[in-house]
């Protein structure tokens, strides 16, 4: 384990955008069937930390770049859960760790700063922590699926920057886009967010999507697109494009086992000025656009274009404060301005069979955006697909439309929220 290492390509932009009001933080939860004992959880966390060198870090400012250094503290404190998770991160708080661990009843939650890892890394960390907690409570749980073997030493591949390793395309595909529609509403007070979680019957949903020849992600993205298009039309304003951002895990395409960031964001864009789209047409649009972009060669070209910032000698030589200003301005122009909402699907999480009797469900939630209204995170465990919206606004019309659409199509949905 090196004493320090540089941020990966995706992480480079996050500290530059980190402000008092907003950070890029997301949450992954494992809900156990029994209530959590915080003392045991703390012991489990201390045992797990050495296995995840990418989590055992603090962020430091260099002259030209931020970098990670091994954190001298053992582990962050385990705290009772809060009603406003994913609030902003400050680098000198929380014993300088960049993730926070909470418990509430049987739910074990980890809020992770996106600079250290992506959804996959956070899911592996949380599941391994939950498995170790259960072991300390007397269960016999082997490694497997999203649970890592704690007796093994972390491999070099786990902390490698897979962007740097794999971005070698001759062509460059630059991300871009016009300013798009954003759903508006009454903003919640600063640092607050509204969480709406829907526990969906996965088998029923899958039986709906299979005959249509689309994936669950494509189906859910089409519902979100449809809602935003209809919402914009009802507002009777100048019709802008609607764009859903969908992160794609690159590990399978590039055969990587990194625990750091290795995702790219694809965009699905529909212009309502071209005419009225039926749901089936939207479904087609989403499937075509995603499948066209989700090609390893194109993904490599996108990665190479993103690596341009790190490889450009002029930009490299700029001092960090100047880079931060540039990143902040660039994010204001090209960040959420060019996306209406976000849908991130972690996919099916597998756990060792011995752990399954103890686990109720899993939950994955992106942090609230600055301009994006309801941002949506999806994860599946067993027959439970959990869709979680993190919203900046008081109004819940998008969430309601989304879940009632599924109910109308015969899918059972159970709702949990922090507003009750």
């Amino acid at each position, binding site marked *: 384990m090196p004493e320090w290492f540089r941020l990966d390509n995706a992480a480079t932009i996050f500290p530059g955008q980190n402000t*008092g009001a907003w950070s890029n933080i997301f949450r992954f939860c494992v809900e156990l069937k029994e209530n959590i004992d915080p003392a045991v959880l703390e012991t489990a966390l201390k045992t797990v930390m050495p296995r995840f060198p990418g989590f055992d870090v603090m962020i430091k400012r260099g002259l030209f770049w931020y970098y990670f250094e091994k954190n001298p503290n053992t582990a962050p404190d385990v705290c*009772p*859960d*809060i*009603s*406003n998770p994913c*609030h*902003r991160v*400050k680098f000198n*708080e929380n014993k300088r760790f960049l993730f926070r661990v*909470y418990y*509430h*009843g049987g739910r074990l939650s980890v809020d992770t700063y996106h600079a250290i890892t992506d959804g996959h890394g956070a899911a592996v960390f949380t599941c391994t922590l939950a498995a170790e907690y259960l072991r300390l409570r007397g269960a016999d749980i082997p490694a497997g699926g999203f649970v890592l073997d704690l007796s093994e030493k972390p491999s070099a591949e786990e902390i490698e920057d897979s962007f740097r390793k794999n971005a070698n395309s001759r062509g460059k595909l630059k991300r871009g886009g016009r300013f798009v529609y954003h759903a508006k509403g009454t903003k919640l007070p600063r*640092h*607050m967010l509204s*969480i*709406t*979680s*829907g526990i969906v019957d996965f088998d029923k949903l899958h039986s709906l999507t299979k005959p249509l020849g689309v994936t669950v992600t494509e189906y859910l993205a089409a519902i979100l697109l449809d809602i935003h298009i209809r919402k914009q039309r009802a507002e009777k304003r100048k019709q802008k494009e609607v764009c859903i951002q969908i992160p794609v895990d690159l590990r399978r395409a590039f055969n990587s086992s990194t625990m750091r960031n290795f995702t790219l964001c694809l965009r699905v864009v529909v212009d309502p000025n071209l005419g009225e789209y039926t749901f089936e047409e939207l479904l087609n649009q989403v499937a075509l656009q995603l499948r066209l972009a989700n090609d390893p060669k194109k993904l490599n070209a996108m990665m190479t274009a993103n690596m341009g910032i790190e490889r450009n000698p002029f930009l490299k030589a700029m001092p960090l404060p100047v880079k931060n200003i540039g990143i902040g301005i660039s994010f204001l122009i090209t960040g959420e301005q060019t996306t209406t909402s976000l849908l991130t699907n972690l996919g099916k999480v597998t756990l060792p069979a011995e752990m399954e009797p103890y686990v109720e469900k899993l939950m994955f939630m992106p942090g609230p955006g600055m301009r994006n209204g309801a941002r949506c995170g999806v994860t599946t465990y067993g027959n439970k697909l959990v869709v979680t919206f993190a919203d900046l606004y008081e109004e*819940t019309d998008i*969430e*309601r439309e989304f*879940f*009632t659409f599924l*109910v*109308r199509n015969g899918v*059972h*949905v*159970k*709702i*949990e*929220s*922090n*507003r*009750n």
Partner: protein
Amino acid sequence: MSYCVKCGVELDDSAACCALCGTPVYMPDDVRSEKQQMPFSSVPAIPAETRRKFAAMIVSVILAIPNIICGIVNLFIHDAGYWSVYVLCSCALLWVIVIFPFMTKKTHPFLLWGFDTAAVFLYTYVFFPMQKENIRNYLTVAVPIIACVSLCALIFIIWARGKSRHWSSVMLHILADCMAVCVVIGAICFVRGLEPGVITTLIIALSDLALIVFGIYCNKSKRIRAWLKRRVFM
């Protein structure tokens, strides 16, 4: 197990109402009596805000360093007079206008206005004698202009405070303020017999007036607004 009659979704056992549409759960007291645990915590964590006061103190100390150095150097190199007073006054003005608002939690706008006006008056009071100008010039040139700008700012604060104003009326207000300042500068030039100054300020003031009249007319007339939209669309 309860379902929302409007949305058709199953609700959590602890829910008092549907999280999607707000429809209350039938006999929620009975449900609550079972002491079901809420799915999410109800305790928020309010993160500490950025320590603005601390940051302002640090900037103040940084700002004080060149002043101290200049003061010491000026003691030894004083052929060109007490030039360090310039640096001191400029820094003091910068401090009052930019850094002072961050030292307090929420400064009253009138208090801020008073401090800023006094700081500018004092700055120019020091500046004029340093330029070997006499005090009469200070009273006849600087004081009326600063007083006019300050008065305009005060009127603007009173007008804009507590109400959200449309950007077009804000623009009109700023134009009117510019015109008032131009009139004062023109009057000073006239008294001092500076003809080019009078003509220049007169042209600016008249242009301002024309823009204000056009702006008011546009604000009132739907037809003109539609015509403008047609003409300048992109």
